[in-house]
């Protein structure tokens, strides 16, 4: 653990319009989890953010928490630990670099300034991310900041944290994972099992049905005059209805039948194969 004072030189920042910060949901889940596991007496947790830097954006893909001690007038962060963890993470994904750090809590304190200086040494223009896990304002308030110098050079200088725009980026598979997790929160006792194949199709169809019901109520409202018609929505509706492909009945029949035949044939073959290997086994054991 180490301590440092305020006399370190401050780094210069990028332009006023800072980079866009794209966060993956795994990072936020990690932060929430490490907040839940914090030591007794600690009011917030901090950690390092890893990711990739682009020309105009910073993509945050991973993070790990760093133990630290905070009291009224001093802050101690385990730098060795942070370095070690970064090395370990680098072995798995060598393309990730330190892009900044995070802290839970609502405000940026003076200690944050010190910690930010430390991270400025590790990465150029580190991003500071805050997440209000104590839900002080009823929301989680995920915000990102960049530090900027301010004040009169030579005399009193200070640090200002300028906010950046935060976007959420998902991989396709992450999107699907998040959908499943979202379904968890509706279940009592917050548990959910993984559904089997046809149930999933049924579930998806149900969701489409719900969406169609919403659209239908909107249309009926417009028709009965309860809501004013919106042209852009009307155009979307027309697109929607035209999306169902207009195929002649016979063509569709043939397409449908050939597809169904393929699938049935494959099912039959796989059943046959399974029966074969079962037989083979019984014969060998005889």
């Amino acid at each position, binding site marked *: 653990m180490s301590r440092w004072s305020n006399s370190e030189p401050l780094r210069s920042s990028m332009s006023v319009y800072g980079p866009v910060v794209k966060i993956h949901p795994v990072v936020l889940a990690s932060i929430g*989890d490490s907040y839940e*596991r914090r030591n007794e007496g600690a009011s917030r947790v901090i950690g390092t953010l890893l990711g990739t830097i682009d020309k105009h954006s910073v993509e945050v*893909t991973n993070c790990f928490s760093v133990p630290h001690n905070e009291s009224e007038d001093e802050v101690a962060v385990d730098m060795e630990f942070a370095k070690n963890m970064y090395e370990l993470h680098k072995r798995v994904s060598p393309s990730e670099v330190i892009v900044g750090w995070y802290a839970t809590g609502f405000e940026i304190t003076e200690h944050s300034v010190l910690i930010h200086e430390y991270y400025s040494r590790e990465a150029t223009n580190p991003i500071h991310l805050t997440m209000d896990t104590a839900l002080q304002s009823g929301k989680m308030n995920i915000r990102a900041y960049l530090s900027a110098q301010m004040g009169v050079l030579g005399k009193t200088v200070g640090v200002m944290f300028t906010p950046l725009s935060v976007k959420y980026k998902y991989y396709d*598979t992450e999107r*699907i994972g998040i959908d499943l997790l979202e379904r*968890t929160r509706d*279940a009592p006792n917050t548990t*959910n099992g993984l*559904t089997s194949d046809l149930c999933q199709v049924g579930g998806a169809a149900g969701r489409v049905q719900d969406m169609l019901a919403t659209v239908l109520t909107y249309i009926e409202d417009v028709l009965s005059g309860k809501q004013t018609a919106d042209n852009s929505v009307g155009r979307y509706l027309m697109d929607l209805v035209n999306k169902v492909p207009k195929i002649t009945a016979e063509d569709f029949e043939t397409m449908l039948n050939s597809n169904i035949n393929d699938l049935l044939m494959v099912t039959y073959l796989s059943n046959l194969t399974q029966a074969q*290997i079962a037989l083979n086994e019984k014969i060998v054991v005889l």
Partner: protein
Amino acid sequence: MATRKETPSTPTAPMASTSPGATLDSPVKQIQIEGLVVLKMIKHYQEEGQGSEVVQGVLLGLVVEDRLEITNCFPFPQHTEDDADFDEVQYQMEMMRSLRHVNIDHLHVGWYQSTYYGSFVSRALLDSQFSYQHAIEESVVLIYDPIKTARGSLSLKAYRLTPKLMEICKEKDFSAEGLKKALIGFEHMFEEVPIVIKNSHLINVLMWELEEKCTVADKHELLNLSSSNHLEKSLQLLMDRVDDMSQDIVKYNTYSRNLSKQQQQKHQYIQRRQQENAQRQTRGETPLPEEDVSKMFKPPQPPPRMDTLLIAGQINNYCQNVKEFTSQNLGKLFMAEALQGHNS
């Protein structure tokens, strides 16, 4: 540390397919995974495992009554260096030590692996899982199928080795007699443990916020009608395996044919010997010494049956996947028909 003492209630959605109501004779009857673990696994494959490479990692958690709770995980680096083994152990130790500092459960409870179209039944997996289960009784292997997940729904399965298979692996007796004794079929190699996903309340709040903020519409990959690509690849893999299987069977057939031929030769030899001896006796000469028949006709080596078992298990897995896939697609096709019917 947040306590998780809620008793497991019946989840609202039907469970993953296992034999219904079967009491697994294992110490682990259910697996409870945190959302964080799922997200980490997805990310790991997405970033580091393109193509047909597998990515692996370690699962951390704890055992509560008959539930195995998985609370965190960390990925393993790929095997690129020569001294991979030493690096692995050290990496693992360092990681666990560091995680202990931040109060993350540091107990090893299993490992995860990604799979390509469901092809994971291999010797390597068997060995790894055996060493894990031998050391830690409740460990499981989580198989994450990214391609199936990309088609619309998370595909995550947890497997353990059955006690019978554990016995056999312990004794390293992979011959036909050993397997016959244990009455192991390819269906009894792995047992699947049902999975339940659980999120703490804070994470649930996060989910609500994300849904609010995120304007990316649902992609509805699940209702995609195209099937030929996926089907072709799965069938290709299935055919390769069936070829392997048939080669194996040919080997076994030649072995049994050789064995029976040898038996015949033995009989003939013994008979000839006896005849000669009888002749010699009539002529009054000393009978020829009884030679050790077994040394002369060395029995052929029986082919190991373990590979056959693995291949059979793999074929079974492929067939199951194909059947699930086709049933889903049939449902979708019928829905499309209904939609067209309405339209015309």
